[in-house]
């Protein structure tokens, strides 16, 4: 086992961590809306992410859509998927949505693997990021003027966190509205909300559709970051890490999601400098082990997460 920590001092290490952390922040904002603010268990967030990323790549590569239109369409398609899955399962009790989202994510993975003419199968898809590369070059030229021209990943970092900032502002704004208040009521007691005339089903569908849109945006950014997407890019591990981010940041805090994600990915990426004599699949297992340890450490120290409200946690029982 060897440890080389010099890379930790390099800016491109932190920019790389920041991009992944930002992508997972956007991804987990959707989970926070579902789990922390509506009380619905969406275990298929990685599936919506895959729908978004593949939709964008396919529209660009096969139908030659302009990238902005493809990105807009990819979020719309993911929202539609969320509405279909929600409509099929949300009228039943909460457990059915959890199962339906797991099943749907599996289905998306299966299609990505088997519809090779469209998705490239296990080889995946690449070459969808030409328009992005051009934009990044343009941004780098501007960044050069302020002396940041040699950080090639900086444009994606900026765009990712700008999208996170917009999504955070939107969701935080919505939380304070009467609409957000109904969601909180539903999270706490569906029957009480229904007794006051609220259409619980409609609110849950809206929550799920918004979460799916955020997953799709995160998927699009992930696709631009890794430049090659294949089915394993969106495995159930992604949803698991999303839930870890949620618990770390604190249930019911949108801003906490970013803190949780940055903390988790700093630890994960720093840990990857510890060179263990292990095969690739074992490394993934070690990664999950680290996620678990970070979770336990934070839970012991602050059960409500970094930004959760302990009082609400206790009162909701």
């Amino acid at each position, binding site marked *: 086992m060897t440890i080389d920590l010099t890379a930790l001092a390099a800016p491109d290490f932190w920019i790389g961590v920041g991009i992944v952390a930002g992508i997972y922040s956007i991804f987990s904002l959707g989970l926070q809306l579902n789990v922390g603010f509506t009380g619905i268990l969406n275990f298929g967030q990685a599936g919506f992410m895959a729908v978004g990323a593949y939709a964008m790549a396919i529209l660009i590569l096969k139908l030659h859509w302009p990238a902005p239109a493809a990105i807009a369409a990819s979020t719309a398609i993911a929202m539609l998927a969320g509405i279909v899955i929600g409509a099929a399962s949300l009228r039943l009790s909460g457990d059915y949505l959890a199962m339906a989202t797991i099943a749907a994510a599996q289905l998306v993975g299966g299609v990505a693997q088997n519809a090779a003419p469209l998705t490239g199968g296990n080889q995946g898809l690449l070459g969808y990021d030409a328009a992005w590369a051009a934009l990044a070059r343009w941004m780098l030229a501007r960044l050069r003027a302020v002396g940041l021209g040699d950080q090639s990943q900086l444009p994606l970092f900026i765009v990712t966190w700008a999208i996170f900032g917009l999504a955070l502002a939107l969701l935080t704004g919505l939380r304070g509205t*009467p609409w957000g208040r109904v969601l909180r009521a539903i999270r706490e*007691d569906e029957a009480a909300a*229904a*007794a006051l*005339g609220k259409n619980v089903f409609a609110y849950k569908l809206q929550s799920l559709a918004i979460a799916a849109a955020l997953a799709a945006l995160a998927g699009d950014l992930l696709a631009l970051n890794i430049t090659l997407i294949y089915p394993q890019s969106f495995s159930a591990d992604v949803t698991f890490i999303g839930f870890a981010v949620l618990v770390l940041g604190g249930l019911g805090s949108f801003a906490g999601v970013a803190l949780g994600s940055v903390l988790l990915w700093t630890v994960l990426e720093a840990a990857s400098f510890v060179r263990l004599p292990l095969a690739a699949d074992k490394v993934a297992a070690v990664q999950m082990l680290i996620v678990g340890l970070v979770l336990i450490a934070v839970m012991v120290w602050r059960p409500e997460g970094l930004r959760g409200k302990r009082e609400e946690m206790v009162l909701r029982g």
Partner: protein
Amino acid sequence: MASRPAAPGGAPILDVRDLCRAFGGVRAVDRASLAVERGSITALIGPNGAGKTTLFNLVTGFLRPDAGDVVFDDQPVTGRPAHVIARLGMMRTFQLTKALAAMTVLDNMLLAAQDQPAEHLARLLAGPAGWRRREAANRARALGILERFRLAAQARAYAGTLSGGQRKLLELARLLMAAPRLVLLDEPLAGVNPVLGREILAHVHALRRERGTTFLFIEHDMEAVMNNADTVIVMAQGRVIARGRPRDVRRDPAVIDAYLGAHAEDTA
């Protein structure tokens, strides 16, 4: 049982006919029929397990009936979703209080307001300006009601920090905010100290007097039933076995029998 005398004020506000609901082999509600007169305070009594709460659940859309009809204010509402029935103006409380504990008392009140268009995402995004004015008006109205219910000091506290009796008061205050025409209360006095209980009953009478709100309440406290209800409806084993003025119902042999029978079963 089938006698449903027409109310002096015209058609009953609630008309339930031959309602049935079974859970497995248990016929919780078994061809129950009853009518609630407009503007009345009506009590629904009966031994434990008589089907009173189930009847509430069927009438308010929280359970679907196997058979039978529910007519609210001349509209058939049988089998309609709970939120639709609530919006039509028939609202209920629950046997186990459902104050939203992790929300503030004030948010509990604002949630009940029925005239806030910004509760709907489409309208919120279409016109993000106007709702704040409505919200301010609702807040003023909510604080006025809380004042009256002696909960104003706790307006910003989490509802979960209130005592059990105060939560029941909050549930009633919340309904007042929503202004339904018919209120169904499931054991409003259970677990409430006598002082707060009298307060709750005073609010019920005041609401009827001021707004003409009709009340149907389930209650085991016989003294409260006899002193406050205009009409008493008695259920046993899923059926309505008697209906009348309190003092008549108390002497009804079928009623005495039902309660004694239930008592005998309890002790057997």
